[in-house]
């Protein structure tokens, strides 16, 4: 038996099919994964993401600490509630995790980290925090519900006290705020509008059920994966891990190179890779034949070399298979993928594949 979120009983009573995910018993679907996917693209769906870690960092020197710890630069966060996506790197540039960091006050930032990496992350963060006298707190008293889709915010706002609704609906993209006893942020992992709501664990079931009553569909990790892949977002552990660096993971944009004097963990290693050019790259693939791309399938770039599919699925929106693959740099526009012994043709495309309900590739 794995770890359970505060919503475990709700999943069982909704008929979820449960699977192990990073040591947690999580719902993979509640019936049809494809219907859940469409609910998010067309209306509103919710995901229990309480298995992710909420880590508060507090102290007078928390900003300098995070400017050292993270590859992206928290000096970009100047308005309270503003969020930033960043990699957490090893000294050699390997990716320990990807996370979202929120600026709350000058002495309080909040990070949301992946479930499978939270223990490793916490140890790493604490190790670096001591020099800055920063306090690192894992908030096990909190749960997290992602409400996503074109109608997600409107439906979720009905749960809030009337006086708080306008403020919640006025939140800008990638900004969060404490509203009533919740922390609501306009972020997500689906390519749709919506909120991620960090809620007191003891209230999670009540909020989940109220969202359901407001017409928000229960969605499992299966739909979450097809949605994020359509949105061209990396999954830690599949598309990147400690053996890969941001420049070969389509995450160069998350590395803040300036100011040059900012000394962040992994900078020296990344600078040298950047100078010589990364020999590998992460690309988007559209399968042009019948079949389904899956992680670990071999990719062949004729005359260049070989690579590997890192994520692959059937895209319910495009009704064809899409994937991400790590291949040699300059692999060209057309590569082939070995699917059960046959080399099938794919076209290289720049993710995202789908955004805000609309296909971006054809």
């Amino acid at each position, binding site marked *: 038996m794995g770890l359970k979120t505060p919503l475990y009983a709700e999943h069982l009573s909704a008929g979820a*099919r449960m699977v192990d995910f990073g040591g947690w018993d999580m719902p*993979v*679907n509640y019936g*049809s*994964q*494809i219907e859940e996917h469409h609910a998010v693209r067309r209306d509103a769906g919710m995901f229990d993401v309480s298995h992710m870690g909420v880590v508060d960092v507090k102290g007078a020197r928390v900003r300098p600490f995070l400017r050292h710890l993270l590859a992206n630069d928290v000096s970009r966060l100047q308005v309270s509630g503003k969020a930033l996506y960043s990699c957490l790197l090893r000294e050699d540039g390997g990716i320990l995790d990807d996370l979202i960091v929120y600026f709350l006050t000058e002495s309080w930032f909040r990070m949301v980290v992946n479930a499978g990496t939270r223990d490793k992350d916490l140890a790493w963060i604490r190790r670096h925090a001591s020099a800055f006298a920063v306090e690192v707190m894992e908030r096990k008293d909190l749960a997290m519900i992602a409400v996503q889709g074109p109608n997600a915010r409107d439906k979720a706002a009905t749960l809030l006290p009337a006086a708080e609704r306008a403020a919640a609906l006025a939140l800008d993209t990638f900004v969060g705020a404490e509203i009533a006893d919740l922390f609501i942020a306009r972020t997500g992992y689906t390519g749709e509008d919506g909120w991620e709501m960090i809620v007191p664990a003891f209230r999670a079931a009540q909020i989940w059920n109220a969202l359901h009553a407001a017409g928000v569909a229960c969605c499992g990790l*299966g739909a979450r994966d*097809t949605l994020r892949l359509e949105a061209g977002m990396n999954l830690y552990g599949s598309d990147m891990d400690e053996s890969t660096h941001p420049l070969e993971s389509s995450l160069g944009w998350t590395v803040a190179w300036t100011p040059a004097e900012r000394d962040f963990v992994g900078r020296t290693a990344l600078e040298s890779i950047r100078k010589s050019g990364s020999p590998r790259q992460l690309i988007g693939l559209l399968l042009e034949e*019948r*079949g*389904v791309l*899956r992680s670990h399938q071999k990719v062949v770039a004729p005359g260049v070399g070989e690579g590997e599919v890192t994520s692959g*699925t*059937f895209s*319910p929106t495009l009704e064809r298979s899409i994937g991400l693959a790590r291949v040699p740099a300059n692999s060209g526009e057309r590569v082939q993928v070995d699917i*059960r012994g046959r080399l099938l043709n794919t076209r290289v495309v720049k993710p995202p594949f789908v955004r805000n309900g609309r296909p971006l590739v054809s």
Partner: protein
Amino acid sequence: MSKIPSDLKYTKSHEWVRALADGSVEIGITDHAQEALGDLVFVEVPEVGRKLAAGEACAVVESVKAASDVYSPLAGEVIEGNVDLAAAPELVNQDPYGNGWLLRFKPADKSGLAKLLDAAAYGKHLETEAH
């Protein structure tokens, strides 16, 4: 609980077999198998005329989650594949024992059918797998 019709034969790898009046057999995957796989998005059925050995991979069913081989429960020669599944793989989810059939073939030796699991034995097999 998944459905296990009593008039069919089964394998431990979750295929079902239906004996047809003309001596041929029809094969598909069980209700349990389709539920475990989730929404099917791609089905590959064998070509007519292909000779199959018992236990040979004869079809592929892919869901959003995973690809899975379907094994021929008996030796024989394929006489028909369900071509409707190319455009509508979800038929396997909706009606695994009916419109979601995968292939029909002429068994090399009809006595093989008797050696497969009956509904009760397959039901027991599912229970032991669950623990």
